């Protein structure tokens, strides 16, 4: 084993993990507040990547600058989806029904993307996508560093919004108990709509970084959603901190095992850890037992 490859794997794990955390945060936020499992999160990440692609290729807008447009756009998409579909889901089967409904939404978006962009693979381009700089004896790609900074900035903003604002208190109250939150005057319906919008909005940033580090088409979303669901299950469904830790743990563990042992054992090792964690803590690392019950 080469020590520089190990350093690279550790750096890559932390930096890439933060971007996955950003994508998974939206998923876990939506589940925490609304008890909705958003299977469409993967395709929405890809939608975010395609929006960045369109702005970059057709309008010459830098990938990071383009987020000023794509983040609000996906927020609006989230609000519309919530109003049209999610708000109509009621009753004890809400969570299981949400899987079916969001899967249907995912298929619709996938079909639309295939029609608009075709199924040819694309990748986002910018000067910092292929370039790197030396650090600790390895070359660190700029896109990984910029992606990490973006993810930290957005997660920090989300944290400040949740823990330092009145609206954040409403969200946390809804996360803890929707009925009690409604009883103290919180408009849970409005909070849910905005939360869904926020959960989708972060996919714009995640999608942009994903699209710059991976070639993709609409079908790529299937790989993504399986990873994102695994992250929030490990971190604890509804837990923002759990999503962050689980994402970094998942990617770093996989990368280190690939370098130290063999790529063949990356996934089995991670899933072995997942099974052990869930055996000891069925609610995940930071999840509450009640959060797993619809």
């Amino acid at each position: 084993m080469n020590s520089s490859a190990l350093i690279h794997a550790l750096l890559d794990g932390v930096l890439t993990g933060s971007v996955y955390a950003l994508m998974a945060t939206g998923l876990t936020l939506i589940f925490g507040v609304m008890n909705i499992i958003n299977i469409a999160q993967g395709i929405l990440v890809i939608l975010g990547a395609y929006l960045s692609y369109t702005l970059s290729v057709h309008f010459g807008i830098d990938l990071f600058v383009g987020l000023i447009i794509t983040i609000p756009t996906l927020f609006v998409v989230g609000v519309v989806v919530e109003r049209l579909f999610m708000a109509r889901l009621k009753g004890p089967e809400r969570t299981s029904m949400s899987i079916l409904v969001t899967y249907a939404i995912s298929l619709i978006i996938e079909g639309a993307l295939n029609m608009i962009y075709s199924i040819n693979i694309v990748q986002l381009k910018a000067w910092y996508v292929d370039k790197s700089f030396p650090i600790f004896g390895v070359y660190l790609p700029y896109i990984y560093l910029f992606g990490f900074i973006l993810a930290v900035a957005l997660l920090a903003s989300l944290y400040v919004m949740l823990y330092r604002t009145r609206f954040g208190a409403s969200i946390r109250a809804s996360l803890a108990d929707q009925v009690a939150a409604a009883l103290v005057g919180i408009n849970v319906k409005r909070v849910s709509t905005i939360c869904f919008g926020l959960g989708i909005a972060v996919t714009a940033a995640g999608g942009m970084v994903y699209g710059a580090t991976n070639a993709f088409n609409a079908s790529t979303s299937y790989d993504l959603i399986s990873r994102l669901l695994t992250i929030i299950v490990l971190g604890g469904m509804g837990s923002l901190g759990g999503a962050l830790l689980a994402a970094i743990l998942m990617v770093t563990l996989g990368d280190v095992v690939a370098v130290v042992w063999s790529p063949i054992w990356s996934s089995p090792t991670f899933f072995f850890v997942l099974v052990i964690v869930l055996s000891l803590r069925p609610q995940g690392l930071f999840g509450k037992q009640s959060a797993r019950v619809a």
Partner: protein
Amino acid sequence: MNRKGRYLRAAGVTSVALASLAMMATSSGASSSTIAKGKPVVIGISLSLSGDFSADGLAFKQGYQLWADTVNKNGGLLGHQVKLDIVSDASSPAQVVTNYQKLISLDHVNLTVGPFSSLLSLPAARAVDRYGYAMVEGAGGAPSVFQAGLTNLFDVSMPVKDALVPFAKWIASLPANKRPKSVAYVTTNDAFTEPQIPVAKAIISAAGVKTKYYSVFPAETTDYTPIADAVAAAKAQVVVLGSVDVPTVSAFMQAFEQAHYNPQAFIATGGPDQGTAFSSVVGLKNANGVMVPNAWYGSATTPGSQAMVAAYIKKYGGTAATVSADVAEAYSVGQVINQAVVATKGFDNKKIIAYLHSGVTLTSVQGGVKFDKLGENNTATAFTFQWQGSKFVQVNPTADKASKPILYPKPVWGS
């Protein structure tokens, strides 16, 4: 109802059910060898129009469609217009089985041709074999496909295990002062890629070239960076990548460039052969010098090849260099089916299977086609192709007149 009555009733119901099943089996299973005048011949195809193989699936669809257009323009197949019944399998081996069962049982297609990849071709061939259908395919050349011993399976393309042989022989033939000292082998655990690596490694190692890195990664890998970084850290002078698609090759190339690692030669088993689908993702400058083994390229002079390329450009745009080899593989399948139908004077799958096993030599845009008892086309020649600027050229076998000089060492990424 007494016990005897219940038994009689159960026996009656069972008999009716069995009879119905038998009727369904005979009516839906066997293909119709004659088609009414004026009716089209329907060919059932399952293609990966989403999922991991979607780019290849699209190219295959284009190849099949081009062939059908050509046949229809020339009066059809035995006077019947060709109609393609294409369904998507999302790159799933389970879905491909369901699709062919549906195509035969419900859509009553007259013939079936293959999907993309060895992963899907084998289950597809097994599924149609139950109905007595032939499965002529163009992208299922892995040894495991033929080891299944199916008699209805025919691959018109080159068997994959020897695909890297011209490249390996070229490395071995280089003068000692030019021959690389080390090689890194890294491959996905796919039936198409994995068998190619040991064959190439044996030839290259015998020439005294040291193996600095050898690793197999799972097909479901999504983050290639640590693996590519490990390859880069090994600093081998040559990289042999066992890949099936563009995203895999693109990820390795991007990681190599980011690691400032420039191997003197880089060959990938699949991906760089996909024309624009490859060059538009990695960029022409990065593609410069990248090699890929295959049996066909856009400037091939095999009979019918340039006519197909011209038809492709007219219909889909691009240039000869940007036509994916997948297009030619699918087109070749159509050509072989065409010749079998004409020779057997009908659409009887049993006769078509017997004809294809008869040792006859057929023609295709990829060259001659002659099947052995396993359905392999052992007459196909393996070539190596290389991106040189905006052109995709044949470079191996070096003795072949059509081969251009190899760009070696490969230019650094982006130049």
